[in-house]
């Protein structure tokens, strides 16, 4: 979906997305790291279960919501990756309490 252009050297960290290891560049947001790994869908909507991916990348649209380290509906574009971070896509209806 997105590819990396020649970039300055950076530390590589590994996050897990739905149990799959994803290599990210330190300084990536979660949403950016997912797009670079070819993951286009962050969640499905709570209304009709339609697929959604990041739209604005600046904290406005709330489309890139994912579960991060057990907390649901975090903005993927506003959260920086950290080594060992556990990310899960959000499917279907909202789960109160998470």
């Amino acid at each position, binding site marked *: 979906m997105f*590819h*990396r252009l020649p970039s300055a050297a950076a530390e590589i960290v590994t996050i897990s997305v739905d149990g799959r290891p994803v290599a990210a560049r330190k300084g990536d947001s979660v949403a950016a790291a997912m797009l*670079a790994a070819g993951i286009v*869908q962050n969640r499905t909507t709570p209304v009709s279960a339609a697929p959604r991916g990041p739209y604005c*990348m600046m904290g*406005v*649209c*709330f489309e890139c919501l994912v579960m991060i380290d057990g907390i649901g509906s975090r903005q993927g574009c506003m959260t920086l990756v950290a080594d060992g971070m556990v990310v899960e896509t959000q499917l279907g209806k909202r789960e109160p309490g998470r």
Partner: protein
Amino acid sequence: MTDQIAPHYDVVVVGGGPAGLAAATLTARAGLKTALFDEQPGPGGQIYRAITQTPLQSRSVLGGDYWRGQILVDDFLASKAAYVPNTTVWSVSRNREIGVSSAGKARMVTAQRIILATGAQERPFPVPGWTLPGVMTAGAAQILLKSFGLAPQRPVVLAGCGPLLWLLAWQMQNAGAVVDAILDTTPRANWMRALPHLPAFLTSPYFLKGLKLMLGVRRRVRVISEVVDLAAEGDGRVEAVTYSTASGRIARLPAETLLLHQGVTPNVNLAMSIGIPHRWSDEQACWEPELDADGNTAIEGIMIAGDGGGIIGARAAEERGRLAALGTIRALKGQTAAAGAGDAELIRHRLRRQISGRAFLDRLYRPAAQFRRPRGDTIVCRCEEVTARQVMTTAALGCTGPNQMKAFSRCGMGPCQGRLCGLTVTELLAEAHGITPERVGYYRLRAPIKPITLGELAQLPTDDAAMKAVIRT
């Protein structure tokens, strides 16, 4: 950073773009205890985003106008202003209590004066299929380029109108990323309205830069003009974009990525949640706060600077930031201190020069009615999946305003808090009832304007008075 947040400041600036950086630099230099809160990990706002940390190795990719932001950032970082990044302001009250959240911890901060410099967001672009993964804003692609050195996979189609569309195409070209097509939705009729303002534009700083940029892009990218209809198609993600032109040509382009843009509008959520009065701007088809020449709002001690006060562009935003700072210094330290902090006349002169081309650009790039007021099954509220037809049907039932619309349909009640449907709903209701958008009004916005967890709220430090207020005796 949280531990470095003091409970009280003379001046709090919200937002680290050009207006916020320029304002905080001046107030701090004048000896006022200043803090700048910003959601991003680095200074610069969206326009100079990642200027201190972009992974892109060639400076020529983003261009000279981008790197000019370095002066602003260097001056700010050299000032005594406390810089608090990665921090969300989720509430501001009329008596200037500011709710901030940093590193998972919320706290309240007070300030004698507040300068809101929350900038702009992209205007909603409701077309069929705009919710499909792979459809993003042009700004999103620009952020991915600046902050993370990422470029979209081909085929890439850009669609819409406005300077940012051309700037993005130019920057992508510089980065070696291919743009396959640009679907230009600028309505031909706009030229007639823009022409009287052409002389001012020709002598403005925008003209030569813009011309160079557009010619550079047009040499290498297929540009399709006068696009009057647009839809994204695909199964589970965007695969193609269909369009028709004013001359009646209908065509379909394959697209792995579709980047939409039809201008930017003030980010009004924080200002409106405080109760700052806004008025409808017909030229820019959006809400703007009511401000005096310095940037004072109707609420004592709260000012607005930059694009959040009406779209003016980065260089003008910087000058508005300086004017707000001088107004702040005058209020807290007197006229002599303000005069010593900067030459207001010179700043106003530069501001006038920077905005001299705006009238032309605003009229030329005013988005077409069909892209502001969609029809049929096109989704208006992305969060709650409310369509244009549902909005119009609800209006026909007698629903007069956006707040009643919430009760009928949940339109505007999702996590984005109306940011991507509010303008559309206001304009649709105005059309349905034959009244002005000003009379229709906007969603009643309330804090928290950004999500914070209940745990964070519950752990806010409280004093005795606050405890007693909720204890039944």
